[in-house]
């Protein structure tokens, strides 16, 4: 237990002492939320953009932590030989992975608290979100975390650190634009919308928009897309991950 606790403390310390990570996981979501609720430039289709923005930006926050922060951090640890070196300590892979997962969840909880608080302050009205819908939203976020974490680790485990950094950041922007987080998918051209709909980003954003926005249950298609990515990407990461 002591190694796990110490490792978890180190992982969390590294996340919160790294300015870039804090900016990525808290700065960007909060700034987007504040900016786009004040400046009505996004085609959110509502007079009250914050109702659309909070669920979408929660999805964005999940993606920034589970995919981008985890992927970049792990990629650099691999590049610096840290992962290799840990392999000859008694820490072990299961504990290392557990510590990383708990650290990601801890950051996500913090993000959720901050974003929901800011959302309420901006007048967010979660509509008719009852217990079942909130539970569905949480489950969707868990699946999204697993899927995005798998993507981040699959890249971190195969690419060189700097290439990984570039690819993960590029992917973050692409999924942000195509994920329906800020821009509704309906605004995309048909062919692009077709691609976007099978991405984990849009499935998560759509699930959260429904459950925490207009109070509609998560669609079967969203569940399928999320589950497929949540199974496929960790498996891919597990099969391809190179520790050195």
């Amino acid at each position, binding site marked *: 237990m*002591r*190694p796990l*606790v*110490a*490792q978890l403390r*180190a992982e969390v*310390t*590294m996340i919160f*002492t*790294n300015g870039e990570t804090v900016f990525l996981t808290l700065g960007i979501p909060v700034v987007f939320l504040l900016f786009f609720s004040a400046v009505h430039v996004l085609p959110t289709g509502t007079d009250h953009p914050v109702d659309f923005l909070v669920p979408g930006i929660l999805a964005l926050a999940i993606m920034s932590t589970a995919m981008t922060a985890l992927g970049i951090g792990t990629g*650099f*640890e691999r590049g*610096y*030989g*840290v992962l*290799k*070196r840990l*392999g*000859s*300590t*008694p*820490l*072990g892979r299961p504990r290392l992975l557990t510590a990383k997962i708990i650290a990601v969840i801890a950051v996500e909880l913090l993000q959720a608290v901050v974003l929901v608080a800011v959302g309420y302050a901006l007048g967010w009205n979660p509509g008719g979100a009852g217990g079942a819908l909130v539970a569905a939203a949480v489950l969707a976020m868990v699946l999204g975390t697993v899927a995005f974490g798998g993507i981040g680790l699959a890249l971190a485990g195969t690419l060189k650190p700097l290439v990984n950094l570039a690819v993960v950041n590029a992917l973050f922007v692409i999924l942000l634009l195509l994920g329906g987080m800020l821009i509704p998918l309906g605004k995309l051209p048909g062919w692009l919308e077709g691609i976007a709909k099978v991405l984990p980003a849009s499935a998560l954003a759509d699930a959260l928009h429904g459950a925490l926005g207009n109070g509609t249950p998560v669609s079967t298609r969203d569940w399928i897309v999320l589950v497929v990515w949540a199974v496929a990407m960790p498996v891919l990461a597990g099969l391809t991950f190179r520790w*050195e």
Partner: protein
Amino acid sequence: MDDAIDPTDTPAPENGSARPATGGGRRTSTPAVSCDGVVIRYGDTLAVDRLSFEGRAGQVVALLGPNGAGKTSTVEALEGYRPVSSGSVRVLDLDPRRDHTALVPRIGVMLQKGGVYPMLGSAQVLHLFASYYHDAEDPDHLLDLVGLSAVRRTPWRRLSGGEQQRLALALALVGKPEVLFLDEPTAGVDPEGRIAVRSIIADLADRGICVILTTHELAEAERLADRVVIIDHGRMLADGTPAALASGTADGSIRFSTEPLIDTADLATTLGAGATLEEERPGFYRLQPPPGAATPAVVATLAGWLAERDLALGDLRTGQSLEEAYLAITGSREAADPGAPGAPDGRAGRGSHGLRSRGSR
């Protein structure tokens, strides 16, 4: 360093004295580390070719060879990072890969490069690693030991190269290992740091720890190791104590310098039948004494002959350094294997200054 670094369950070197100066006397106990006919292949490349050697408790074994000789591959096979294509590796009588979980708490590893969280402070990393072990060394004591107390808050990426190496060494020690693997422990370390690292390694061996280190620097091997395993192109070229290796290839020749173009024929005659003399380069001579002649007598005759002619005696040396032995060993192999690439590591040692810079050991 005090007895904080005190492996509780490793045997002290036998016969009470410091390190076994003769490369660890034969013992009936199992060696701490053994390689037996190890072959490591990467695709078509043969990195290690039927390598066998042993390391015992209290012994410092240096794997010496040029870059790319297969040293790191060998050490990484012992650490469990690399599978061997054939042959066997054993560490503390365990299989480094199959018994990985049982082995890792008992070994300390210093990688050739990196291996440390770049953003965490020295003390933070050391405390983190200490938490992985049931019975860990006191991190603050270790920081002190490797001389990093002043930079305890400095993150790894802002440490100097030498400081990074010393932190990596401290991390290898924190679990109180019985076997320590150090891949190029003094590379990039300044002279003062080297002295510190050497004294730590010697102390660990005194406490019964088996230290396996790699180096491409002869002087390091000569100063640090009880036993030197010379490797090139994945093959063992020689294995023994630095002294034994040096004398093993010694041919009894004497080297001296004086003025160029002395009458070598006359000197050889004076020295007696069978003596040969060769001017290797202007003013530098290699003398092969007559068979059975005692070295002091030969030196006396040589000095007398020079004195009669009022010639100065410059550099005079009998026997040879490990460096010369190394060059002789790797050179003879290259001669036997024309396909082998050239000089061992391109070190300047074969030139004029290196041959005279003997270690103090």
